[in-house]
């Protein structure tokens, strides 16, 4: 069920890269309100991990979540429409960047609460398996999340009940302005070891390396293994959140570190594995896809304020409004 095609892997990282660059432009242009946490530089992780998944698998992401949703195969046009708050968006304009979800392909959503997704995905995988499916799950989280009790509690549940969840730590060196060295006692892999969860550290800048590690873990999990952890070392090429484009925080990342961090570029690394003509063809196709996505998003209607609370209750309960 896994996808070893280098062209498709390249297409995924390239799609996420250009999607994010376009999204940043739309933030600056005011079409995306509230800003985004760009996934720029980290594309290889979502792409590599999702290439290891099958149709019945599920994942949950983070506040920096666009890459996970796109790598899993969500429609970029509906994803962009969501970021622009349109009714045609994945979440009908109700979720935005930090809550983008597509349940139809097993994306339980980006999540704005750091450390929250691990336990949710553990429960989802456990339930799918009880219902007879061969589901495995992926919980993406950052280096900051490994200090949240909730996530460590999820490690324990998954290991204890042998729920096949691949915990993927995207270690980009910082939680907002806090460096890993200032926040993490012990190590990230060591946290997994404490629960007897096998862990590997991989180069998150190489999409193929990530894919191979994820495939190996998924194979073991499908053969009856419990949860595993991949710590993918990476670097975020841009800001924590686009508000930093407007308000400059002090140099919490030394400028020369940023320069060095941006050298190993997952899009370039995977692109170099393709013949020039193949790469050019993918680039052109991605550009056309995103041109259409931007048009679709901006041409789509905004939701009607009278329907602000539609979907609040799945049961159909209607809430009292707040009016006079």
């Amino acid at each position, binding site marked *: 069920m896994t996808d070893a095609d280098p062209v498709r892997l390249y297409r995924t990282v390239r799609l996420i890269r250009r999607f994010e660059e376009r999204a940043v432009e739309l933030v600056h242009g005011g079409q995306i309100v*509230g800003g985004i946490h760009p996934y720029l530089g980290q594309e290889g992780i979502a792409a590599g991990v999702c290439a290891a998944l099958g149709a019945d698998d599920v994942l949950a992401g983070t506040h920096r979540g666009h890459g996970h949703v796109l790598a899993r195969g969500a429609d970029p046009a509906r994803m962009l429409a969501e970021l622009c708050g349109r009714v045609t968006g994945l979440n009908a*304009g*109700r979720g935005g960047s930090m809550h983008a979800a597509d349940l139809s392909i097993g994306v339980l959503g980006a999540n704005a609460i750091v450390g929250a997704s691990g336990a949710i995905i553990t429960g989802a995988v456990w339930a799918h398996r009880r219902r007879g499916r061969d589901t495995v799950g992926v919980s993406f989280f950052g280096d900051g999340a490994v200090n949240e009790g909730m996530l460590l509690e999820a490690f324990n549940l998954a290991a204890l009940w042998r729920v096949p969840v691949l915990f993927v730590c995207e270690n980009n060196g910082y939680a907002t302005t*806090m460096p890993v060295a200032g926040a993490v006692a012990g190590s990230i892999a060591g946290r997994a070891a404490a629960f007897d969860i096998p862990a590997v550290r991989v180069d998150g800048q190489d999409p193929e390396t990530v894919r191979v590690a994820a495939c190996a873990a998924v194979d073991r999990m499908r053969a009856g293994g419990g949860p595993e952890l991949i710590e993918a070392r990476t670097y975020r090429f841009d800001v924590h959140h686009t508000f930093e484009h407007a308000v400059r*925080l002090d140099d919490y990342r030394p400028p020369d570190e940023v320069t060095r961090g941006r050298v190993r570029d997952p899009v370039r690394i995977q692109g170099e594995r393709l013949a020039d003509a193949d790469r050019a063809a993918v680039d052109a196709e991605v550009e056309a896809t995103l041109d259409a996505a931007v048009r679709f998003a901006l041409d789509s209607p905004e939701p009607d304020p009278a329907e*602000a609370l539609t979907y609040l209750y799945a049961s159909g309960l209607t809430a009292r409004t*707040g009016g*006079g």
Partner: protein
Amino acid sequence: MPRLSYRRALTRALADELARDEAVFLLGEDVRVGASLVTTGLAKRFGAERVRDTPLSEQAFTSFATGAALAGLRPVVEFQIPSLLFLVFEQIVNHAHKFPLMTGGQCSVPVTYLVPGSGSRTGWAGQHSDHPYSLFAHVGVVTVVPATPADAYGLLVTAIRHDDPVVVFAPAGAMDVRDDVDDLTPVPLGRGRIHRFGDDVTVVAIGHLVHDALAVAEELADQVSVEVFDPRTLYPFDIDGLTESVARTGRLVVLDDGNRSCGMAAEIIASVVERVRLLAPPRRVTRPDGAVLPFAPALDRAVQPGRDQLATAIHLTLKDGS
């Protein structure tokens, strides 16, 4: 008179208290760099020992603050996002709040929880846009929601000096308010403030909504005389001050950025009607029941209480009572 922004007033209060009392220290995520733009410069001035960046471990550092308070310090804990209060509700309610009684009065827990940018920041959607002040008022934790720079300064200073836990909500909608402030002094807890005197109706407005209420009062000035009462502290509530106001105007409208059911507005109305015979049924303008702020800007606005709704509510109370 120097002009001061609400945000800088908070910074000033933190700096003044850090300078005044060695027991005060600040704890939170990205407080060194000052990602909230409130703690900017404090680490440089007071050192990393007293302006401490934490890992993303809200539950642990909230109770860490409780422990430090039990040992004689006065921690100020900053939360970047209002919704993080849901995460640490256990630590605040079950521990910080309960220790004095449970220990038979052996201790106090003087912690301040500061939430810069509470409520909607437009575009931050469901998990970052809550305004859960009524929850803290409900459990009886001292809760303040300043509306102006002077009150932001004065209430934060008082919160830090107070011997029980205090939650300070600094609404996103007020952070950029600027005022001429000549005199920065502590503001007592539990004392409301009348921003505008009027004869026909008392509008109680909370936090940033005070500015909306004042704008509506001005707009309607030729039709109705509106008094604007800002409680400033939600718990303990200045019911005497409000009773005095409503006894004069005979009508009550509450403007509250919390959810409707079991919200502050409900509590305020109940407390007033227990004491005053109104000329017309009271009204409230709130978020809806169960509100989750939808992402799209127009929906986000639609779920928050607005000026038009307030104007309508004022007109309706006048009509009902005539």
